[in-house]
């Protein structure tokens, strides 16, 4: 039982809009242990990207942050912008979705690395900086011959490897990877996932891996957190969650994913809820096949189920269940008009 690198407690990120606050992240609690890869999955608009950026303090103006993000005994939510800026890079890294837009086309790869190292570790001798950069690139599968090339001379997958190397060259303790493989092809994606999954072995870096692809989570992550409408509805070890999903949303999501073993189509009716006026109680209840009377009335508790933690009334706690709460909820039929 090691101390978590990062622990997030009841984190909320709300955006002000004309129609009221949009609750992009609304009370999220999780831990990230050293060298662990935590997958954060959910459909688009569930707040997973906002959560990733909120943890790093990279939110646009107008976003309100509340809760705790504890990193090295400090609450990043309350830290000043300068403090976070100093941590970003050497301590906290971020890998983006589109690698091309994040590399300066006028700078060689070598310059990118040397600039980054100089900015955060000014005492590092030049030779050492080069050595370290080439070593990291090598670990990502970039041959040393390409060290002095320009970004445009690389393919998309290569650029993403460079971005990962650039994040890792500072040896951060914690990296957020926001859909790092979405723009890439199947084979390249598999290669990058392999690299990311090997991170803990080579770099001792913890990774928050944001993706919408459940297959990738299964391949690359140790634990998984399933997000729905700003909440983490289920989290636990990947094998357990995927083998025995406890939350109906996780179950439905897994069933509707088309994989090589798919023989029949399944889908979740309806659309993800409006984050400005989310449904009362459990946010999944309007689409949930197992919704009960209690679901729209009360917010579900976080309940441990085996190795998992689930936010669902199906798993109790019984002492909070009102009378008749377990009865089936009768709802209107969901039509295509409400579809995503």
């Amino acid at each position, binding site marked *: 039982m090691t101390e978590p690198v990062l622990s997030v407690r009841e984190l909320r990120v709300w955006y002000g809009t004309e129609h009221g606050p949009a609750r992009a992240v609304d009370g999220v609690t999780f831990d990230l242990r050293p060298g662990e890869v935590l997958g954060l999955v959910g459909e688009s608009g569930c707040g997973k990207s906002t959560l990733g950026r909120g943890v790093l303090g990279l939110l646009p103006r107008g976003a309100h942050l509340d809760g705790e993000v504890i990193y090295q005994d400090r609450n990043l939510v309350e830290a000043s912008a300068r403090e976070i800026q100093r941590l970003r890079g050497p301590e906290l890294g971020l890998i983006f979705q589109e690698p091309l837009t994040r590399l300066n086309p006028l700078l060689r790869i070598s310059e990118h690395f040397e600039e980054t190292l100089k900015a955060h570790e000014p005492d590092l001798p030049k030779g050492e900086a080069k050595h370290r950069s080439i*070593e990291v690139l090598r670990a990502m599968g970039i*041959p040393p011959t390409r060290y002095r090339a320009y970004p445009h001379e690389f393919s998309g997958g290569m650029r993403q490897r460079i971005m990962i190397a650039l994040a890792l060259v500072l040896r951060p303790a914690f990296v957020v990877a926001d859909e790092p493989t979405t723009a890439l092809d199947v*084979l390249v994606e*598999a290669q990058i996932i392999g690299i990311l999954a090997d991170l803990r072995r080579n770099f001792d870096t913890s990774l928050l891996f944001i993706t919408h692809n459940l297959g990738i989570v299964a391949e690359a992550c140790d634990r998984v957190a399933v997000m729905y409408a700003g909440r983490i509805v289920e989290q636990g070890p990947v*094998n357990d969650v995927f083998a025995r999903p406890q939350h109906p949303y996780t179950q439905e999501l897994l069933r509707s994913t088309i994989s090589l073993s798919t023989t029949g189509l399944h*889908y979740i009716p309806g659309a993800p809820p409006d984050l400005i006026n989310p449904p009362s109680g459990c946010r999944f209840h309007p689409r949930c096949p197992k919704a009960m009377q209690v679901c729209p009335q009360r917010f579900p508790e976080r309940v441990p189920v085996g190795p998992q933690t689930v936010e669902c009334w199906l798993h109790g706690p019984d002492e909070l269940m009102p009378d008749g709460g377990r009865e089936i909820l009768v709802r209107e039929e969901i039509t295509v008009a409400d*579809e995503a």
Partner: protein
Amino acid sequence: MEMRDLEVHFDLRSSALARLLGSAGETVKAVDGVNVLLRRGEVLGLVGESGSGKTTLGRALLGLVRPTSGQIRYGADDLASLPQRRLRVLRRRLQMVFQDPHAALNPTMDLRTAIGHPLRIHGLVSSRAEARDRVIDALERVGLTPAHQFLDKLPAELSGGQKQRAVIARAIICGPELLVADEPISMLDMSVRAKILELMLDLKRELDLTYVYITHDLATAKFFCDRVAIMYLGRVVELGPTEEIFADPKHPYTRALLGAVPDPDPERRVPRDLPRGEIPDAAAPPHGCSFHPRCPLAFEPCGWEARDLRAMFERRWTRLGEDVFANEQPLVAALDDVKVGDGTARIRVPSNRQVSELAGLMEEAQAETPDDPLWRGVVGVETDDDTVVVRFHEGSDPGLLRSGGVDVACHLHDPRLRPEGAERRG
């Protein structure tokens, strides 16, 4: 309008399509000699990575891209040489569903106008009421009900799945025979994908459609298609019934693709052997079989050349690190400007003394990675005064050959070339 049927078999034969993307005189063969027969009522999957030419091929099928050469027979017509005017008339029968539903609808046109527009273009309706009825019918078919709610909506008022339904409605309103669907679900959320696929299957049954399904996602292709064509760098490398290809992939590229599909079921996870590197530059495709530089099973006739030697050195340095790189790089510096497609690689070294050093290095590299397929392609290493000459086996282009129930373009499955006793590794 009645279903007009020229033949019982719907033939769409395309061959040797190539597209010129002329910049600085470079030719990119986006689609390079493809022969595919499309049968009426089937779902043909075009599967490949980006840059494999699958999208270009799909667009050529509709005449949206003019083939440089070759034929696309459709009924009695050749789409490849038909004048625009005649082609426009045929568009009624050949429709397309696009990848990005957010971009495929005119943002300033309401659904009634947008979906009904093909009817007007082809003069299929005489009155506005008729057009409206047809639009409502199409909307209902794609599940956008109650239809009158959607008639006056603008695309911006719809969700991604609804937009894709509207795009499909627009595609089917003229009663097409063939629908080319270019990654119709890849931009949609997981929970909607299945719905759109199911809709497409329903429509196929109801309207007797033929689909060309373009995708990079093998999982949906396996579920959705009757036959698949696996494409790599503008060519079809494997073509056959879906079941056979997925049960027993013959081409190493198909195997690699299948191995790379992430599976959410932890029990089905397998350790994988991914091909190295990435899709090469289509402007300068590899000699011989385009997949050979990445292929773990490549052997003598696959088209070895000097570039592969350079790639071998790069792999070596990536593995062994900076110091080895610093030592060896000067020796093979001349490899950077070597001629492409020649059967040999001549490496000129700065001084005669280093010739033996380089030859030794080659031996060392071979001894270290004897399994690298490259060594199967090397006939011999000779030394000259100041040059090391590496001779390669003669390579050839693999063509599509029948192998079992599928067609595959790989020398491993060519009985004339297959090495004696070479077992088919799974």
